[in-house]
């Protein structure tokens, strides 16, 4: 211990100074990189907001601040067809989410808590349904919708969206239910409690957060869907918002209504973004539970 070379303290001091400089440089580079990532992810949406508040010629000048002219928003909310499509989207997404959560939680209880031989097979089938391309069922779905008499009605979309949302909610809720310790229900099982009571009286009250994150993901899925909404709805007043925006165009090639489209885009996306920012942690939990643990 005593024979440490005398040169060591000075060298250490110098190296700690350069170490500090290196750290500072590293931290600076890190902040620049994070800044770049933020600009990359956020600028397009910011630009949509800016563009939606500009009028006429101002739209074509690239000032980076919004002009705070809400003409297009006012026009949008006086447009009954657009408002109608907002109502349709809200109806379709909410109903789909509610139905999927009910079907999903019931199935997830069986898959997460009851041991039966075909469990793996059912889970595999659910996974397969959730990955096959939607266009594959289009012909059969067309027939189904006609047969149910739902063609050109928003409720047709609720039925067809179950194809995507039910496997998804079942899968995620199964992983969530499995995470609860089994000890929770042991007393109830010993007392001979029925499965239905275990689910409704013990698990369900605890599942609020899991249901919320799963529900938001299902809601976003249903709100954003395009292919079925484009195919099974014929008239403008029955459309959902993504299709309404997708089909928006000008009277002529030279008069493309970008400011209106941006106003509509911001309106449609704002609720989603607020929802996502509020429930950020839950959504990440839901996404990773669904994908990584599967």
């Amino acid at each position: 211990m005593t024979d440490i070379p005398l040169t060591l303290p000075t060298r250490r001091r110098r190296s700690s100074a350069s170490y500090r400089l290196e750290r500072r440089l590293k931290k600076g580079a890190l902040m620049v990189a994070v800044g770049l990532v933020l600009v990359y992810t956020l600028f397009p949406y910011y630009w949509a907001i800016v563009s939606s508040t500009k009028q006429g010629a101002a739209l074509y000048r690239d000032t980076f601040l919004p002009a705070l002219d809400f003409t297009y928003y006012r026009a949008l909310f006086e447009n009954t067809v657009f408002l109608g499509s907002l109502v349709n989207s809200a109806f379709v997404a909410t109903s789909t989410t509610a139905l999927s959560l009910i079907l999903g939680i019931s199935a997830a209880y069986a898959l997460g808590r009851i041991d039966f031989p075909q469990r793996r097979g059912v889970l595999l089938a659910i996974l397969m349904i959730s990955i096959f391309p939607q266009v594959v069922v289009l012909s059969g779905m067309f027939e189904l919708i006609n047969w149910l008499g739902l063609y050109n009605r928003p409720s047709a979309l609720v039925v067809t969206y179950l194809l995507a949302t039910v496997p998804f909610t079942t899968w995620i809720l199964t992983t969530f239910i499995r995470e609860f310790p089994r000890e929770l229900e042991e007393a109830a099982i010993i007392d001979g409690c029925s499965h239905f009571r275990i689910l409704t009286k013990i698990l369900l009250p605890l599942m609020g957060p899991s249901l919320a994150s799963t529900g938001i993901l299902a809601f976003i899925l249903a709100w954003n869907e395009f292919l079925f909404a484009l195919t099974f709805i014929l008239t403008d007043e029955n459309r959902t918002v993504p299709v309404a925006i997708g089909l928006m165009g000008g009277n002529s090639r030279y008069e493309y209504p970008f400011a209106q489209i941006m106003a509509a885009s911001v309106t449609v996306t704002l609720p989603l973004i607020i929802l996502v920012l509020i429930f950020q942690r839950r959504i990440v939990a839901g996404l990773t539970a669904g994908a990584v643990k599967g």
Partner: protein
Amino acid sequence: MSVKLARADRRAAWLFMAPMIAAMLVVAVWPLARTFYFSFTDAYLDDPTNFSLVGIDNFLEVLDDHTWWIATRNTLVFASISVAIETVLGLAIALLINQAIPGRGLVRAAILVPWAIPVVVATKIWEWMLNDQFGVLNQMLIALGLVDHGIAWTASGTLIMGVVIFIDVWMTTPFMVLLILAGLQMIPGEIMEAAEVDGIPAWKRFWSITLPLLKPAIGVAVLFRVLDALRMFDLAYVLAASSEQVMTVSIYARNRLISFQELGIGSAASTWVFLLVAFIAILIIGVLRLDRAAGEAA
């Protein structure tokens, strides 16, 4: 007693799953079966009840169509390039966010924004930003003196596929980031600390510790993204309707089915899409399994 209990349990399990299974039979199994069936018929959409069986003629007709092969090529090019970029970019951003930076939660929330925006809306926003005359990107390029006049990003045949890939990368990289971040957080910190104390350089720590441990997370993320990219419809449809330059197999199948009313041939095209996606899924899952087996052997 226990046998009886087990049987009761099994019955309860099927009872609990019955509503979900019934829903899946109606909206997945039945339509899928009907699509397969229609692909062997000469039915038309305006009168789906009047048809006769034609064997595998429809399947051959799709294969004989030049446009189908263009759509297949576009789909494969789109899926492979965009998922490759998303994986690298997602990994880079995930490593960045995993560092101790101020406001990490806020950054993670900001990253979710492109993911929450509907595909149609994201496409419209980028279409506006890439507009040849008034788009902000072209104006920036002109201001920087990089080009004389705006580039028609979405009008030119060679650029538009790049634009589709670019928009997809912008929208779905967040998904990659989140999955890889979840994988990163499962790596025990002690391993990295031990390696750092041992003086192993950062790039080597990344290459021989982080990356191998991340492999399962990246594998799952890639599988999900590839299958998603293979069925892409809305992005290319909104940006270029039925232009052949970015037409995907989903757009091709829907065109034949809805626009041309060819229920039989459209169904056959859909069935080809199904087979294509299934084949690639099996291929990827096979590769993942092989990796896992190799990892266990090593």
